[in-house]
């Protein structure tokens, strides 16, 4: 599939989102969030299938999209008794601003690239050796050799250690793995608080994957989430085959 070629060229989640927006000729000020989220998740899944490492930023953006999507759905859900306090604000607003700003950044980057290309077409020459025109090079005052050592050390600090390019990557927890983990726990507990599903000391990525896993399980109708009141803890309840709520 075409993903393989495209995926690696996205410099981040915003880049991917912009690509989707352009591809579907979407008005950036009125993003159909459900469609874009669906497309975005498809790319992430494709990345997973290709065993590409997914940078945590992509997962964070997935969570953001899902959160926006759910906030936009909220007023229509009859079981929610009231709207969130700030519901008059479009939940997409912040993302739109971010996308617009990033779009300007891409615009400027494209200009710089063009300037760089043009500049690579011109050639200069080394400065002429002017020694024949000057009788004697002026002597330098004496300097401490430490000046030299400092210069070298400062240089080494500036130079990235390119030859030891071991890459440290965080553990990537796939949503599928996390879904398994959540189901296992719920089989034991039947219902529990969302936060109890999180592994102890969970990193941001784990939190996000847990969140995505629960959303995915809700979609597959294997769990339901309930909330007693706005901002109360979310309870996750296992639905098994026999007890479809």
């Amino acid at each position, binding site marked *: 599939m075409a993903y393989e070629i495209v995926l690696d060229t996205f410099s981040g989640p915003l880049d991917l989102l912009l690509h989707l927006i352009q591809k579907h000729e979407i008005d950036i000020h009125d993003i159909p969030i459900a469609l874009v989220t669906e497309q975005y998740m498809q790319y992430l899944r494709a990345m997973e299938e290709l065993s590409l490492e997914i940078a945590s930023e992509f997962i964070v953006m997935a969570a953001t999209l899902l959160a926006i999507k759910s906030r936009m759905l909220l007023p229509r859900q009859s079981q929610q008794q009231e709207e969130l306090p700030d519901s008059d604000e479009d939940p997409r607003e912040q993302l739109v601003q971010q996308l*617009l700003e990033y779009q300007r950044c891409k*615009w400027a980057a494209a200009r710089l690239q063009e300037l760089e290309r043009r500049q690579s077409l011109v050639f200069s020459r080394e400065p002429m050796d002017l020694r024949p025109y000057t009788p004697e090079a002026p002597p330098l005052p004496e300097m401490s050799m430490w000046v030299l050592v400092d210069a070298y050390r400062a240089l080494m600090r500036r130079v990235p250690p390119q030859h030891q390019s071991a890459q440290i990557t965080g553990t990537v927890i796939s949503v599928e793995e996390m879904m398994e983990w959540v189901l296992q726990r719920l089989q034991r507990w039947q219902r529990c608080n969302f936060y109890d599903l999180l592994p102890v000391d969970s990193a941001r990525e784990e939190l996000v994957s847990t969140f995505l896993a629960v959303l995915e399980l809700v979609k597959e109708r294997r769990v339901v989430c309930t909330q007693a009141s706005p901002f109360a803890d979310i309870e996750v309840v296992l639905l098994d085959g026999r007890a479809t709520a």
Partner: protein
Amino acid sequence: MLLNVTGPLEALLFAAGSEGLTTEELADVLQLGVEETRQLCLELQKQYDERSAGLALVEFAGSWQLVTRPEHAIYLRRLAHTPVATQLSTAALEVLSIVAYRQPISRAEIEDVRGVKSDRAIATLVHRRLITEVGRQNAPGRPILYGTTDTFLQTFGLRSLEDLPPLPEMSDVSLDLSLFEQRTSVPRD
């Protein structure tokens, strides 16, 4: 009258090569006024442009420099020893554009705009002297603030930061989207 001095001017610029010379340095050596020297440079520039010369006179980062004309790049590339310009990755270009337009700026602020970690791209740009530390932010941890360098101006053929193309208004950008649609297979950074 000016014509008589374009010879020495050409000789000086030729000798300076990639180092270039500022209007003031030229004025000093030619023993002319600064404004007169500037006019002379523009005159030489015009001469090069008018005849089908191999050279052009350009001003980068405040220095006048003789360079070959872009249309002859094809011949120069055929010379075996011409260095192949290493192109910047998309990520590095993005970071560079943010720094160029918003300097001084911290890493966190750069990452805010891009929505992605950018330490590697920043390290590449620092290493290539396109950006450098220009101060520290008055915030917890005193984060480094980055700005562009003269190497940046030189690399992109700009006389000064004012030569950067003005950013479009937020809402106008979408019109230009197609311009950066052609994606190169530049590796991410």
